[in-house]
């Protein structure tokens, strides 16, 4: 299979994001991940006879937040609906979802494509719904285990427009969406634990063709990398099929990450008529405009706005601003570092080069850094105040990164104090000049390049502790004197 430049791929993504509410969507059960099976279950989420759902108001606030963050329109009157199907981990035999009147519509977010272009991706709708439980088929003969702990966990289903044109764009969209949800602190975005799940609708068409091709839906994509690989595979599969005279069948396909391939789900697994109808146990959800306004006022600064501010107000490069706003944690790290007295550009540079470089080599996230922003801020402040040199700062940072610790203590313990005492430096300069008459001669004849050699000698004599700016100034003065 090869990439065919005559075709374009059209992708729409459906994301299911678990909301981090304290309790489930319609009952008081806890939503903590990893409890013993069936320990977070009550008659309501287990759908016993006669029980009724009561909507979690925290979830509504989270949905409104998310809607505002993607510039969507928030329906002041939305409606719940039942999606009916039988499955053992769906206790009621229906999923309470939203169908005709979702809470959020017409949103968007922006990604940066491979060629550096900013691209708008439409978000058709976001609706609230309830998660199902889990069926476990391993470890028991001729039967299955049902764990209802997850049943009733609140989800937002976020449906994009078919605006994505490549696996890379899909990846960027997911990263941006996940980052927004994390900024809002409504979803932990953990794809492996299933709190951020994605299905992809993929079709291909000849370049220039306006009608969409027949699409397939890809499921079982449990990382952004898998989403991208599955889309690439699927686009190639469809192109090959069309080029060899075949046609695409609308179907749902399961991605197999181990085999790097997908297979169609059996007809029975997908042939559902969900018989949607308005949920009679919940009145339409009416949201007061004041509630939306209040939430809007409390909305945190989001990645795009932050990046813009970093560029315009702090003078950061487009690249640094992008890196530092890619996650809420990163941005918080940066801002905290700056608040401790570091210059923004220096802080940006140190975080994106020194810190992230080391973290990436160790396969770690910024939350796992032993260096705290307070410490980095202090380190950079020491450097800015000429108490340590840049070289020392890197050595100190190495120690901080490996073993943790506060820069002042490390400076003390390892004797990293920079010599800024003019008299002391002047004495060393005099000594070095006396030891190197030839170079002094050359300098005075106009070969100013020897300056570097002399500085090196002085730094060597001070074991690198002399303040380079002072050294330069004193040396200049002595040489021209």
């Amino acid at each position: 299979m090869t990439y065919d430049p005559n075709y374009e791929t059209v992708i729409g993504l459906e994301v299911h994001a678990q909301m981090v509410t304290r309790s489930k969507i319609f009952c008081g059960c806890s939503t903590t991940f990893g409890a013993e099976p069936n320990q977070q279950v009550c008659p309501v989420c287990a759908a016993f006879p006669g029980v009724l759902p009561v909507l979690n108001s925290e979830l509504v606030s989270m949905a409104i937040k998310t809607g505002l963050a993607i510039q969507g329109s928030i329906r002041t009157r939305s409606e719940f609906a039942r999606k009916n199907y039988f499955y053992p981990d769906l206790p009621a035999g229906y999923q309470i979802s939203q169908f005709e009147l979702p809470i959020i519509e017409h949103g968007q977010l922006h990604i940066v494509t491979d060629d550096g272009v900013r691209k708008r991706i439409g978000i058709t709708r976001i609706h609230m719904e309830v998660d199902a439980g889990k069926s476990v088929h391993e470890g028991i003969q001729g039967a299955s285990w049902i764990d209802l702990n997850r049943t009733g966990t609140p989800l937002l289903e976020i449906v994009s427009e078919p605006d994505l044109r490549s696996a890379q764009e899909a990846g960027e969209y997911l990263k941006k969406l996940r980052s927004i949800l994390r900024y809002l602190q409504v979803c932990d975005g953990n794809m492996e634990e299933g709190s951020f799940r994605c299905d992809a609708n993929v079709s291909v068409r000849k370049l220039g063709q306006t009608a969409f091709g027949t699409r397939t839906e890809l499921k079982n994509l449990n990382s952004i990398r898998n989403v991208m690989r599955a889309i690439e595979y699927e686009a190639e599969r469809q192109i090959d099929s069309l080029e060899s005279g075949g046609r695409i069948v609308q179907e749902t396909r399961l991605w197999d990450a181990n085999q790097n391939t997908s297979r169609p789900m059996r007809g029975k697994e997908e042939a559902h008529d969900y018989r949607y109808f308005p949920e009679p146990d919940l009145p339409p959800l009416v949201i007061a405009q004041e509630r939306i306004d209040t939430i809007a006022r409390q909305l945190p600064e989001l990645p795009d706005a932050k990046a813009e501010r970093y560029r315009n107000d702090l003078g950061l490069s487009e690249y640094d601003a992008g890196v530092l706003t890619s996650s809420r944690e990163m941005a918080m790290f940066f801002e905290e570092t700056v608040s401790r007295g570091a210059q923004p550009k220096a802080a940006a540079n140190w975080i994106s080069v020194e810190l992230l470089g080391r973290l990436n080599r160790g396969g770690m996230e910024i939350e796992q850094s032993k260096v705290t922003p307070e410490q980095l801020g202090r380190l950079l402040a020491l450097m800015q105040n000429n108490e340590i040199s840049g070289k020392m700062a890197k050595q100190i940072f190495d120690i901080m990164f490996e073993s943790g610790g506060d820069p002042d203590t490390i400076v003390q313990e390892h004797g990293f104090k920079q010599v800024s005492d003019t008299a002391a430096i002047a004495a060393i300069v005099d000594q070095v000049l006396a030891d190197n008459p030839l170079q002094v001669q050359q300098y005075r004849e106009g070969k100013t390049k020897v300056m570097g050699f002399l500085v090196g000698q002085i730094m060597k004599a001070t074991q690198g502790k002399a303040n380079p700016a002072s050294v330069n100034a004193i040396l200049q003065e002595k040489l021209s004197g």
Partner: protein
Amino acid sequence: MDPTQLSLVQAHAWLSSRQISARELTAAFLERIDRLNPRINAYITVDREGAMAAAQRADDRFRNGTATPLTGIPIGVKDLFCTENLTTTCGSKMLARFRPPYESTVTRKLKEAGAVILGKTNMDEFAMGSSNETSFFGPVRNPWDTERIPGGSSGGSAAALAARMAMATIGSDTGGSIRQPAALTGLTGLKPTYGRISRFGMIAFASSLDQAGPMTWTAEDAAIMLRVLAGHDPKDSTSIQAEVPDYVNTLVNRLDGLRIGIPEEYFPDSLDRETRHALEEAQQVLRDLGASMVSVSLPHTRYAIPTYYIIAPAEASSNLARYDGIRFGYRCEDPKDLKDLYTRTRSEGFGAEVKRRIMLGTYVLSSGYYDAYYRKAQKVRRLIARDFQDVYTGVDLLLTPTTPGTAFPLGEKKDDPVAMYLSDIFTINVNLAGLPGLSLPCGRDHQGLPIGMQLIAPVLKEERLLAAAHAFQSATPWHQRKPEL
């Protein structure tokens, strides 16, 4: 006087003055149940121990001064209200051994008021039926003529009360299930405004129509019961947030100035002649009490049955999906796979009428049919509700027959579902419009069987229904007639 013949109000006076203890009263009812229930089959479960323990606590409350008007009153509860650790069957094999780990709001409120729950009354399976013949636990017999049906689906609650095997009962009404059996057994049956009483713990048939309500001998007793049962419940998002009036204080003996609408559509040519006659006499009584009669029209009345038989089964088909043999209730023997488990559990656990309605409901919601059936029915439902709103600009209450005729013989309509469905023709629109309706006895036919009339009020105007019914009962003897057993 036999204490089982007292009204609730009279019994409270006896209990307050220590003329009788709650234990004696409860024991008298339990004895009567032992004697009559084998003939009537009104109770599925009798909770002797629970009732006697509750009676003991009631006596304590009379001693320590914390008694309420319901303290020590022996009550029968329709078997679709979940009662903690007391079997709740919903009239079905599916739940024949189901013991809920939680209490319905209705029974919790009764218990908190000190009422004595005697047991759980028979009903059509999942409240689907108008004759109480679809119960897995056998048909209930009408105490006025044991070869006849008592109505349904709250047939057990009606028969238990008519046979004086309870002092009051609780029913539920989705399309007439309180009012129709009340009419056929000579009782006062109140279906409050949709959402007036919490549905929490009441096993759902059709969620947008279901409403609990009291069945009593008198409107005054109903007022006492409603006072306790009504009110918003945080566990039921569809329950109404509104003050609960003191329904007893608003009872009156005169109806001066009251305008009662007589909707022409409720008096068709096919109406039973004796029922028509009883309603005409009732109108005269009401005029004598000071009310005026106004002819009105509810033009969408004739769409009631088709609209109801789309919406109710649609909701039921979804509500009953949870009975899958996995977490509670009946499960078939040795299922060979998941599909077999579902198919046999549900085929064996549900009766024919329930299956018929699940199929109807599944069909009307299915892809390609939704717009033609369910969506259209919702539109008609709004038109029906608007009919009532329009009419209430000119009248305070409506008066109609409750049923097209008196109690029919067992088995007569069992195999003719459409004929059976038509027996709710006068009650269904009240549910579709979410209004309060009350049936009370207003005469008898040539066989001595009770005839009922229905009063319908605007939303949340239960006190108007109860006041009119009380005034009528102050002037007529019908509610005092008792079947001979």
